């Protein structure tokens, strides 16, 4: 990805969900740019469009109208494979629910993206060991997700999102299913990583703790940006 200032930019983004005769306007003309190294929280009440915005920014969903530029390139110009490869190489995802592949061990879950990238086994193992140490899960490499607590699973998810060193990590309510202590610990880990490696983080959240620690807070209401505030 070129070193442009904006990693992701959305312009005039709208998303309409249809359920039978009913139309729900999840996003209505959102313009937003995310710059390299940001630690941004997209906040708002339930149904405000946070997850939808995050999904569209990551190319997981298609907008009804508007443009999404990934590294300056419109998503609509990318083929299915190009978009998959782009996500694999440049975007890391963390989801609200524990989203590990249950049949794979913690190590295999973390290795998965690197295997898709064709990283040699030796390097994969070294990077897995390093990242697990960083998120405080040394020695748990061979555990299956069911053998880990919710907090540990989410740490593995963070490790998996970060191990391939993507340009940006999109986290959809990552602390929603965790108790406050575990959530705080996880958030500190991510903030450390942001500060050390300059990795860009964008969270969708209504967790006050994340909002307080974010350096930029974007508030959504009824599918529109209500507030966009950068803190020192």
């Amino acid at each position, binding site marked *: 990805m070129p070193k442009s200032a904006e990693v992701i930019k959305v312009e005039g983004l709208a998303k309409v969900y249809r359920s039978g005769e009913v139309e729900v306007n999840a996003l209505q003309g959102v313009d937003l740019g995310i710059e390299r190294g940001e630690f941004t929280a997209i906040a708002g009440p339930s149904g405000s469009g946070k997850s939808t915005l995050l999904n569209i920014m990551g190319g*997981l969903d298609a907008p009804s109208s508007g443009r999404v530029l990934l590294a300056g390139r419109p998503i609509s110009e990318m083929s*299915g494979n190009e978009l998959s490869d782009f996500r*694999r190489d440049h975007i890391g995802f963390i989801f609200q*629910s524990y989203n590990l592949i249950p*049949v*794979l061990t913690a190590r295999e879950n973390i290795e998965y993206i690197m*295997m898709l990238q064709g990283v040699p086994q030796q390097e994969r193992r070294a990077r897995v060991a390093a990242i697990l140490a960083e998120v405080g899960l040394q020695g748990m490499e061979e555990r299956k997700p069911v053998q880990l607590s919710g907090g540990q699973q989410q740490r593995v998810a963070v490790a998996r999102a970060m191990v391939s060193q993507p340009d940006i990590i999109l986290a959809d309510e990552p602390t929603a299913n965790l108790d406050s202590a575990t959530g705080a610990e996880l958030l500190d880990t991510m903030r450390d990583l942001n500060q050390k490696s300059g990795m860009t983080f964008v969270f969708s959240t209504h967790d006050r703790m994340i909002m307080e620690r974010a350096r930029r807070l974007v508030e959504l209401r009824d599918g529109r940006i209500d507030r966009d505030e950068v803190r020192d």
Partner: protein
Amino acid sequence: MVLLIRLAWRNIRRNTRRTILAGLAIGVGLASLIFTDALMIGMNESMVRTATDTFLGHGQIHAQDFRANMEIERTIVDLEAVVASLKREEGLRHFALRTQAFAMLTSPANVGAVALFGIDAAGEMGVSKIDEAIVQGAYLQAGDRRMLIGSNLAQTLEVEPGDRVVVTVAQAESGELAQEMFRIGGVFHFNVREMDGRMAFIDLGRAQELLGLEGRVHQIALHFDAMERDMHFWQRYSQAGNEALGWRQLIPELDAVLGMSQYSMAFMELILFGVVALSVMNTLFMSFYERLFEFGVLRAMGTRPARLAALVLLEAAGLSLVSVLIGVALGAAFTGWVAVTGIDYRGIEVGGVTFRELIYPVLSARQFIVFPLQVFIFALIAGVYPAVYAARLMPAAAMRESF
């Protein structure tokens, strides 16, 4: 690819009960296909063997049109040359000369119309099983003045070995009626209605004398090492006023039954493949919807659509492999067991042939190579639809729908 195979195999093992149930559904279908095919082969072989070995032979030579009008004068043309040629034939194990005429048998108690065959007692033993079917009295000897009749006919005429019957026939050329008295030498029982009720055998020389044929015969029954002969054989003996026919032409109704059994098998296969397709699709879709979120996550992590489709196809392949192994094991065990014990259809008539022996399913390579391969390929084809469905999945939609 290794990663996908590992992932697919673990997913198959993930819900063991469902995998085993789906595997059993497909496997039992495959096992029943193997058994039915083996049984069909056993039945067909038994039917053909019963029809040909009992009396008909693997083929026959007659004068042209003899079979159509049964005229006594129509004897085999140039018999000596035909016999000499047959003696030189390779793969022809035995042949037997016969006369055949309609006759009236009269006993003190009753009258019966029969097909009267003049047979060479010694030569006939190599072609038919009349000698083995004798249930009362004894088989014929050369120059014998005795007669063999079927068990049902013996009942009708109320005779038994040692009793006398009078044979009335129309002689060749003149058409004059000729009568001769025979003693019942033996009673045979083939458990075939037509043979037991309407056939009688006398010595060939006596028959020629009675019918005024003087060394001529109506029929040469053939018994080969292998049941089938090529076209050239039949053409070679279908010359100069004679016709040579294989058992398929002699008993076309049996040939039709065999043909029908192939259609039945094809129909069975079609039903099985339908079951396989539905079972595989059902299992894959159940597993698929259960893991919709996971598929969304895999796509989000950068798994290409084709890879996801490959994963689903690999799961279909794994599931069908498990099923095929179950099916082959069940099929081999059950069919193998019945192939030893046999099934008793004796006395039941199919296509004009009455089973006289136990039926033993015949195992063949086709059942354990072609059928499993067909099931495997069909299961893979059935996996294409869920695979394409998975490939087209929008990651966010998959994750949304899973809640």
